């Protein structure tokens, strides 16, 4: 035990216990498909909301864009597996290797641009947009004929029990990368705006995504997404292990990021952008990093959701839905990972599970009266959210733990 600290051990053990209990309930059939679906949905929403917590709770950028990225991840990864199970590896090659190529080009361009001062944001955006288009075009023209048969052959040689999870994993990663690339392109010019303007712009983004998803078969070249009729025939690959594993990895990534100096930079941008600049933090970088990572989480969660319900409809990614993660993150406590995880599951279990089942039939829509009332009470009685900024010991940074231990003196008002 010398190497591992107690909170880490407790955290891993506790998580494993939760995983095994729920896995046990699923395996023995105690949880029917309905409740299984609720829990998977809760997991996906929690991951989306953790992304929002990084963007809004920790970095202070009010965003309504999460469902746009959730939708991109869902449709992106579903498109990949849809074609893969029908014997066509092209979508996988473009989504996976095309994204990797574009990210590589981004890194090269960022490195190149570092040598120049005074390149305006609009110019940067134009450069990045051009290489994005070039990258994906090149992957369609060059990589698909080159890597497609190779990849297919490789996976055909693998036993099915290995190949299928691996394909799913790569599809999830692809969805996350596509969401990340979109958020980078969108965030580059828009994050320059102040917080409120940024919020409105992200709302616009989610609306655009929904409209594009409505027209995937007409103005976009993705006939299998079937536009406003909804996409059918996605393989059902999501299991509790996938949901839990992804959630666990996301939590650990967020925790480690926030405990690093980069994390401190992200949080200090929330506290005072100007002061952060004056201590040498690259504010634009910190914002982009938080925004892209938060969107990648949303994209991966979208993939999990798509492969659970096997049917995608643009209406699920309507901008109104974007308020769900916002409500959850405020409800759980802005800047608390613990709060988001707890509230994310609570939200879905309560709204889609308990209330839907226990309200008399015909009164289900009263859910939308009950939850706003709960919200209202919450804001009046506990505006800092259920958990405030409380964290489980494992998720808490050492210096924050110390601060919480010191007697919470009443705050004097500085003169």
């Amino acid at each position: 035990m010398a190497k591992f600290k107690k909170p880490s051990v407790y955290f891993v053990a506790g998580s494993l216990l939760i995983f095994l209990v729920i896995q046990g309930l699923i395996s023995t059939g105690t949880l029917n498909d309905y409740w299984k679906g609720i829990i998977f949905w809760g997991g996906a929403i929690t991951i989306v909301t953790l992304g929002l917590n990084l963007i809004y709770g920790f970095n202070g950028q009010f965003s309504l864009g999460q469902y746009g990225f959730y939708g991109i991840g869902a449709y992106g990864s579903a498109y990949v597996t849809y074609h893969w199970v029908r014997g066509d590896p092209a979508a996988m090659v473009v989504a996976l290797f095309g994204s990797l190529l574009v990210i590589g080009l981004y890194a090269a361009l960022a490195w190149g641009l570092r040598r120049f001062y005074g390149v305006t944001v609009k110019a940067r955006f134009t450069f990045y947009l051009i290489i994005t288009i070039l990258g994906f075009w090149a992957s369609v023209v060059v990589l698909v004929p080159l890597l497609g048969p190779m990849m297919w052959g490789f996976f055909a040689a693998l036993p099915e029990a290995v190949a299928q999870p691996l394909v799913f994993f790569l599809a999830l990663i692809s969805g996350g990368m596509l969401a990340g690339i979109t958020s980078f392109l969108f965030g580059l010019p828009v994050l320059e705006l102040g917080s409120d303007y940024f919020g409105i712009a992200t709302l616009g983004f989610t609306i655009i995504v929904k409209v594009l998803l409505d027209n995937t078969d007409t103005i976009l070249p993705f006939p299998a997404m079937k536009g406003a009729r909804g996409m059918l025939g996605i393989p059902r690959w999501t299991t509790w292990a996938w949901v839990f594993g992804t959630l666990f990895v996301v939590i650990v990534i967020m925790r480690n990021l926030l405990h690093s100096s980069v994390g401190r930079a992200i949080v200090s941008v929330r506290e005072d952008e100007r002061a952060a600049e004056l201590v040498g933090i690259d504010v634009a970088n910190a914002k982009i990093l938080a925004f892209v990572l938060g969107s990648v989480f949303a994209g991966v969660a979208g993939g999990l959701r798509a492969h659970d319900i096997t049917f995608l409809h643009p209406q699920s990614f309507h901008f109104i839905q974007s308020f769900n993660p916002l409500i959850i993150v405020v409800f759980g406590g802005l800047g608390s990972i613990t709060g988001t995880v707890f509230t994310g599951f609570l939200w879905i279990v309560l709204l889609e599970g308990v209330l839907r089942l226990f309200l008399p039939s015909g009164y289900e829509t009263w859910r939308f009266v009950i939850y706003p009332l709960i919200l209202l009470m919450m804001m009046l009685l506990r505006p800092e959210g259920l958990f405030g900024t409380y964290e489980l010991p494992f998720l808490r940074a050492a210096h924050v733990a110390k601060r919480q231990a010191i007697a919470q003196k009443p705050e004097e008002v500085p003169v």
Partner: protein
Amino acid sequence: MALLEVKDLCVSYGAIQALHGISFHVEEGEVVTLIGANGAGKSTTLRAISALQIVDSGSITYKGVDITGKEPSDIVKMGLIHVPEGRRIFAPLTVRENLEMGAYTRTDRRAIRESMEHVFDLFPRLKERLEQTGGTLSGGEQQMLAVGRALMSDPKLLLMDEPSMGLAPILVEEIFDIIETISKQGVTILLVEQNAHMALSVAQRAYVLETGTIGLSGPAQELAENPRVREAYLGGH
């Protein structure tokens, strides 16, 4: 070669031109002060140097490198640190965390610890309040924290914007004592002040800013005795 050389600096806020081509320089080891009335462009000058404000024309050279148009974070890495007007400490973070944020651009943990000890020598009060959040400090303590945070980045040149603003006279004395101490330890200081009397007493040279142009300049002692300066900025006594 001067440590900092500003040439024909022009800055405007929309249609209003705040600086009409000012030029000045700061030699290594000096304390130089910019004095002037409200709206003369003192803070704008500092903001332009630390890249918080976009420059219309002119050049800013630091350590022989043209830093006009660089990012604020790059400038901090070069050891040019701005202590802003109104302190701008991180109110929800503790004193320790604030100081650690000051060392954000540095990686050598031992050197950072030494800097922190150094800050505690200068400001023993901060050591007493180490785990208190910045927002709960008094105005004077916040100013000390702002200076302490700047020192944590191991600065070569400090830009100080109105360090005496809103402080009781005894604290003003204390802050200026600190400025002299820091200067003796080899940090070059460019000081902007409304309290011209105090500023001229610690500075070697001074520039008088008048609505975006430099009116007078010279050794601080001389300016303090200049009848025009005395009348306009020192209350005429």
